[in-house]
């Protein structure tokens, strides 16, 4: 395996996003995720608590924003993270949101149609 060779583009629906192709082509999120969340942690004697920073900026952007999406989809099966796990209870609520939305819209539209159709029936008399 050589890092220098870009991964061969493959047919089908797999996207390849270059790492070997050069750092500029690697997605910023992928890099941040790795250099901030992973990598060996050894506290230098110049200490900055990355967790503070992470919570304020990165974690918020990388993780929390996507929790909503995750719940919309109705899964959080990467739930090894206990913090994410705690959100599981909300899941059912979120899951039914689409359905609720549809029902509300449905109800509103039905009454609107009724109003319009009955309005149409009276149209001749009202117009005069």
């Amino acid at each position, binding site marked *: 395996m050589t890092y220098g060779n870009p991964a061969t583009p*493959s*047919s089908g629906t797999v996207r390849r996003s270059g790492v070997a192709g050069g*750092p500029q082509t690697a997605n910023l999120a*992928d890099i941040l995720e790795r250099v901030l969340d*992973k990598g060996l942690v050894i506290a230098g004697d110049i200490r900055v608590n990355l967790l503070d920073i992470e919570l304020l900026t990165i974690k918020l952007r*990388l993780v*929390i924003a*996507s929790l909503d999406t*995750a719940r919309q989809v109705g899964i959080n099966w990467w739930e090894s993270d206990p913090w994410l796990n705690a959100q599981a209870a909300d899941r059912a609520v979120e899951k039914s949101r689409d359905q609720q939305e549809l029902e509300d819209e449905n109800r509103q539209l039905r009454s609107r149609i009724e109003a319009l159709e009955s309005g149409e029936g009276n149209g001749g008399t009202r117009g005069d």
Partner: protein
Amino acid sequence: MTESPCAWIYAIADEAAPVFTGGPIGVGGGAARPLSAAGLTAIVGSVAQSEFGEAALRQNLEDLDWLERTARAHHEVIETVAKERPVVPMRLATVYSSDEAAAAMLRKRADDLRQALTRITGRSEWGVKGHVAEPDDSAAGRQPETGDSASGPGAAYLRRRRAQLAARQDARQEAVVGAQAVHAELSRLSASARVYPPQSPEIAGSAGVMILNAAYLVADEWAEEFGATVTELAARHRALQLTLTGPWPAYSFVGQDGTEAAR
């Protein structure tokens, strides 16, 4: 206050680490260089206290532009060295007040570091992300409408809307099942695997809902097979848009959890 430079550590390699000629340019514009102790070599760079000292660092890390520059520079050096030999990548902002302090850390942590090196030698990290391939709303809306002229355009709209939402729901369901299957299969080809929360679309710069964000530690001789399997899986799970990234230095497999993943 004296302005002696600090030592920024990129990664740890074995003893025979390369002596850079000119060195890759790293964080803060300085060249990366080897620093050896205890039979190990740290890849370090000199950085200014004014930018990378404790207070400055804390402030700078909150600046997303600075963070991006620094993260890319850090990654670039690690990647350059990883082309040559196995390296244990360090988390961003591992900074020592001097070369001596960094060397002392190498001596103190030599056993851990050697273990981590062994774990990742001959292996690379591959990233696989899966997005829901959202169905085409208009396609769902174009379903045959049978005898609806009697029930009026309002009812027809409702039916179309219902079909759209149902199609979207089905697609997501299918994608979730697909993501689990993909992860199970790729894990079998890997020495170790990690699943992460999905990235938010804003920072990932991607459209659509991410439901799989995983990293796999794959033996280099299996890399081709791994890539081929991803392609195959993508063809089998159409509800999922898969993205393969890599090879990466083994960022995800040297951290604290990495010990348990050793195999």
